[in-house]
């Protein structure tokens, strides 16, 4: 990746310096904390525990997709048990030695540690100020819940503010729309982080309560087990889902190759279907289903002899009839896959035409399912704009013009208009390879910069739909 902007480096250095001030309060400054020094007994085991959990989350058998944040309960337990500088020390000792995967190593390491130290220190400070220590010591659960809630809120606030800062600085300029959209993006980040962090805060509170109880740290450790198990299951979920998507992709690539199409036709039809669906204002679930509809629309060609698909020269009526069976073959194949929903109808009907001259059933107008009308437009568009064995690729404006000409007879004018609008706004940049860029619910991907720890907060189990 390219070099980090200088202002981002300055920002990281500032964060690091502030964190240092929190760790070692200079005399006279911030002296409101009891000057008894840091109690070593809970700090050392907690730091070791934190580092151990982080290592485990990155190890091979667990391998969570976003390892940072797996062990926030330990950090928050420290914030509820220790004086602020002690809690910050736990974060420092745990986060600093962790390996960094990407360059620039030093800046990333400093950033990752600095933001955690600052957030934990602030949470602990607030917890102390609102009287959370007494609530934990007295086992007063409503009081402890309230104070821990305040601390978690501050923790989340500090983390997302720091992340928002680095995002704005590394993105180069403020996002489109200036200040308001930056605030909106931050607010979204905050809301998405709040739910998982609340669960972590609860677990941290339980650890703190049990740690202070006569049963001691052993009982507190047990709290981490269900959390760890849920992390493991979540990682498995991600791995399995990625494998599933890879399988679907590979199969449709096989179809593309068998058909003699350029590689990636199905993938691009999926992308165009998604653009149309977004433009129509459909909700996110339906957009995702329509993407699959586009990807899988020609899967029935697996059942058609390759000889016919790649035949040079004109087809006999008999051969044409066999090829025209592919929507029915495809529907037969995918009808057992329940998550595809209306995409199955799209596979069956993507060659129907609005005037009823299409196949397999010759449906007309509104008899054709909406999903099929979307995929039909996307399919025709990509067929025109990519090079085939029998025709050269046309430029995008010419293809759109052709679609507009056929709208009403072959294609639904609403879908054609949506595609024209979507391409007019964001252009047509089909993905060349079938890489696994799955846009988030809001289509927002943070720029790949030093924000590595920002991902996990947003991708916790609770954060997804």
């Amino acid at each position, binding site marked *: 990746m390219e070099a980090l902007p200088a202002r981002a480096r300055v920002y990281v250095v500032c964060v690091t310096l502030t964190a240092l001030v929190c760790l070692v309060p200079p005399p006279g400054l911030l002296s409101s904390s009891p000057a008894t020094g840091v109690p070593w007994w809970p700090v050392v085991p907690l730091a070791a525990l934190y580092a151990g959990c982080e290592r485990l989350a990155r190890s091979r058998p667990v391998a969570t997709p976003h390892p940072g944040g797996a062990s926030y309960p330990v950090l928050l337990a420290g914030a509820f048990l220790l004086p602020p500088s002690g809690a910050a020390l736990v974060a420092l000792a745990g986060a600093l030695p962790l390996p960094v995967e990407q360059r620039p190593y030093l800046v990333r390491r400093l950033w990752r540690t600095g933001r955690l130290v600052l957030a934990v220190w602030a949470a602990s400070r607030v917890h102390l100020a609102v009287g959370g220590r007494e609530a934990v010591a007295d086992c007063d659960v409503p009081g402890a819940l309230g104070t821990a809630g305040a601390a978690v809120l501050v923790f989340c606030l500090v983390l997302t503010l720091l992340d928002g800062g680095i995002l704005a600085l590394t993105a180069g300029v403020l996002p489109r729309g200036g200040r308001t959209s930056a605030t909106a993006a931050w607010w979204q980040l905050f809301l998405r982080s709040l739910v998982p962090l609340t*669960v972590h805060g609860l677990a941290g509170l339980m650890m703190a309560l049990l740690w202070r*109880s006569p*049963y*001691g740290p052993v009982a507190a450790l047990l709290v981490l087990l*269900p959390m760890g198990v849920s992390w493991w299951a979540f990682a498995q979920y991600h791995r399995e*889902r990625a494998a599933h998507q890879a*399988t*679907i992709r590979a199969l449709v690539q096989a179809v593309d190759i068998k058909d003699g199409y350029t590689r990636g036709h199905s993938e691009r039809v999926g992308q165009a279907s998604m653009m149309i669906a977004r433009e129509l204002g459909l909700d996110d679930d339906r957009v995702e289903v329509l993407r699959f509809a586009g990807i899988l629309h020609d899967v029935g060609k697996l059942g058609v002899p390759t000889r016919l698909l790649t035949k040079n020269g004109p087809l006999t009526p008999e051969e044409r009839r066999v090829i025209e069976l592919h929507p029915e073959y495809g529907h*037969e194949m995918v009808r057992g896959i329940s998550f595809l929903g209306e995409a199955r109808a799209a596979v069956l009907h993507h060659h129907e035409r609005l005037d009823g001259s299409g196949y397999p059933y010759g449906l007309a107008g509104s008899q054709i399912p909406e999903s099929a009308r979307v995929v039909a437009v996307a399919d025709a568009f990509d067929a025109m704009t990519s090079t085939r064995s029998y025709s050269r690729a046309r430029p995008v404006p010419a293809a759109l013009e052709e679609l507009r000409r056929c709208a009403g007879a072959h294609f639904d004018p609403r879908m054609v208009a949506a595609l024209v609008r979507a391409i007019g706004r964001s252009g047509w940049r089909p993905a060349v390879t079938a890489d696994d860029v799955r846009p988030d619910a809001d289509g927002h991907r943070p720029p790949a910069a030093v924000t590595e720890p920002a991902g996990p907060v947003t991708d916790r*189990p609770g954060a997804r739909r």
Partner: protein
Amino acid sequence: MRPRLHTVVLLCAAVLAAGCLGATLYSGVEERGAALAFGVLVAVGELTRRSGTRIREAAPLAAAGSLAYALLGEAAGRPTHHGAAQVVTVVLAASLLGSVPHVVRGAGPALDPSARRVLTVGFVAVCFQPLYSQGAFDGWSGSAHALLLLALLSLTALCDAVLAAALAHSRTGWPFLPALRDELRALPGIGAAVIATGAVMALGVAVVGLWALPVFSVPLLLAQLSYRRYEAVRATYRQTIASLARATEIAGYTPAGHAHRVAALGQAVGRDLGLTEPELTVLEYAALMHDIGQLSLVDPVPAGATAVLPAAEQRRIALLGGAVVRQTGVDPRVAAIVERQADPHREQPLAARIVRVVNAYEEKSREGGPGGPLTALEELRLGTAGEYAPEVVEALARVLSRNTEGTREHGGRAWREPRTGLSDPARGWVTHG
């Protein structure tokens, strides 16, 4: 007819439950607040049970709550006085209450899990409550007490695994040791979370009172949620593979339902030969996709019957299939099995032997008409010199004879899912359903 093990277990559980109920009715309920709170927790946990999933612990919250109640010695610093009988009564009543909606919806009450719940909770409570109230654990204070609870729960989990495997063995006749191994394999996952939550809840209630119940159930609920999502995506993946593997049937290369039947019968044989759950999944995928190499053929094999082709041709198709499967990015072990399904059995991995034998049986018995299955088995036995592995053929014969019994006993209940959980009571299935 000698009583089957599951009847004995059910009887034991019923006797224990009736005895505890009687004792509680006679002596009255101590500490009603705690009893009510734990009862509500168990009932809510039972409500979140989702039947039909392959999760080993379908209602983890209810399990953890009942274990915690059995291990409860103090509440907010004051000692409790409920005995073992009350624990079993409260847990049983709450479980029954929580399963009312499931019964209303038509899913029958799960007898085996309920019996296991009563027995394990009874075991824990009988081990802990009398000794605790006599002060036998007074020397075990602080961390030692936590470790004691943990040890007791771990022992219980082991016993429960043995019980579950024995029940599955008795219900279905599947070998005991692989079933036990699968049960034990599942322990480090959600089983460990249940144990830890049970112990932590008991300790938490001892420290902060009944407030601990809602707070301490959050991590376990999270774990349950994650597991469900994992299971859901696995089910989707299986559906996708099964559907796309039908491409050969749609293209007319193989008869309808062939891949599905080979997968089901192969699973049964694999289970009989003691394969583990992950190995069974790989075997299932390989069996579903074993004919996919035929897509690359110019002309279909007549009726898709590859078992009658010359060996070299069989191996060529197998290699083509392996290449296709490798492309789809499924577990590479699946591709390896598909690739080697036509090798001589001495060189094959076990899963590939199973696919070969079961595929040949399916093809031969289909052609043979009414007497087909018997003739097919006989032909396979004759072919054990080179093509078909003798131990697999014998396992197939066992599965088939057990299946005939099974269908008779379970009223001809047809096989529905490719694979059902071990705790599923009836797993009868028929080859030509």
